């Protein structure tokens, strides 16, 4: 009996101590949450971007696309309000480096030098390819013989994958405004056999205005990573909180499927 009483007392003491400890933890947690919340409430993050089909669609209204859904979710879960700023493609990395935007997407590996990656994992990969008139479609680009002697055009300034440059000596750059339209027009009017594009998806998707004219094949195995990047000038606590939210967010693949349903 004595032992039992002693245990009872001990249990009551432990219970009370536990309650006190829980209360302390709860108070501390509330204070921390309040402090964090007050840090981010009403704070905005400016994201620099450009029309990047089908991930970012720039139109008359607000920006749309699976990339926008993903970025908005990311910022909102970290407690920030996203503000999107459409920036010329060539200037996006520079805007980010100068701190004119807090975040940027899409950013390529060679543009990451003066910024911070959201993650070591790229958000997605771009695959280069060749576009053809439908009647001349080549489904497998690993069959080099089929395209090695074709007249291939590409947008001047675009980096050509070495695999293509090694096997085709008739690569012709095309310059000027609305370059994609020019490439497709040249292709349609048979002034070229194929057009090289650094990323097939924006050119060849069911919503593309070129879909009726061309079909594209991918150079599988030559994909390049695309990242979300943050400005070096962002406060380190903001960078930390964004990265924490990024880790908790569902994989981008899930956003891609959701949108296409």
């Amino acid at each position, binding site marked *: 009996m004595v032992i039992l009483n002693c245990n009872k007392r001990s249990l009551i003491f432990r219970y009370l101590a536990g309650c006190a400890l829980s209360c302390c933890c709860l108070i501390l947690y509330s204070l921390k949450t309040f402090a964090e919340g007050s840090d981010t409430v009403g704070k905005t993050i400016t994201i620099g971007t450009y029309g990047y089909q089908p991930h970012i669609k720039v139109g008359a209204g607000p920006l749309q696309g699976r990339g926008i859904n993903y970025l908005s979710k990311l910022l909102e879960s970290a407690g920030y309000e996203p503000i999107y700023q459409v920036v010329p493609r060539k200037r996006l990395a520079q805007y980010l480096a100068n701190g004119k935007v807090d975040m940027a997407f899409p950013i390529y590996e060679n543009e990451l030098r003066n910024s911070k990656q959201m993650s070591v994992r790229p958000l997605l990969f771009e695959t280069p390819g060749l576009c053809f008139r439908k009647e001349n479609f080549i489904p497998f680009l690993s069959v080099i013989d089929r395209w090695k002697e074709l007249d291939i055009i590409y947008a001047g300034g675009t980096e050509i994958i070495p695999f293509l440059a090694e096997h085709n000596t008739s690569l012709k750059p095309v310059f000027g405004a609305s370059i994609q339209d020019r490439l497709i027009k040249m292709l349609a009017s048979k002034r070229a056999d194929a057009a090289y594009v650094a990323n097939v998806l924006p050119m060849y998707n069911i919503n593309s205005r070129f*879909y009726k004219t061309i079909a594209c094949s991918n150079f599988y*195995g030559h994909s390049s990573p695309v990242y979300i990047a943050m400005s070096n000038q962002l406060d380190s606590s903001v960078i930390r909180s964004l990265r924490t939210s990024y880790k908790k967010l569902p994989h981008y*693949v899930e956003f891609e499927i959701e949108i296409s349903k």
Partner: protein
Amino acid sequence: MKFSRLLLLALLFLNNRAFGVDYPGLSIEVINIFMASKEVLFEKQAEINSANSDKSSLFGQLFLREIDLVYKRNHGQPLPKADHPIKALLYQSILSVMEDNRALIMDPGLVYKGLIPATFSFQLSQRFSNSGYPVKIKFVGLRNNLVNEANNPDVWEYEVLSRVAVSVSEDGGLVQQVTEENGRSMVRTLKPIYFSLDCLSCHGTVSDNPANKFISKEHWTLINKAGFKMPNYHLGDLAGGVSLTLDVLGIQEGGNLELQ
């Protein structure tokens, strides 16, 4: 054989004691799902290449249902649940690859789309392996007869395939091994693939080439539908394998390779 059994025992011991997850079992499941999806793609070739048939079963949940049917046929049980992030990622990757190819599949202007099991597998392995998770899946070919250089086997895969090529086993020659790479334990699994009748239309002899059907022998072509020379394989020949690498420590850390 003894050596691989010993390693498998060591693997199971490590697995039960330290990891709490059946990594060898998980690896086999992932490979079996991968193979079932590839098989579905083979069976759906007519649908893929048709100009105007209903193609809804090639996307989303309907496509997973097709894989489920094949999985049941092959293994006598339903498609495994996505109860591990790696399996969930594989299912997502399968659906994403089909979405990536939507324009091609739906294109009424193309007689032959070229979305075949080999290209599907390659895209799927890239999607899956590039996700940042500490897991890689790869279709590996034989070094002396590669169509795609990206399917080149690494040293371990080459050794396993060389062993498999000269031995016949009851379990289809599936090989599992724990290897050390830069001080990290890797659970490696390779399932060999052998040429079936379906495969021979592209990988078989000149007489297997469908383009030569109803044509007199002197007019036969050596080139298959994909544009390659028929490589002269026969029914049951080793084609290569599906290779899976799990970075055990990486998985335990939750794939946490992030920047600080």
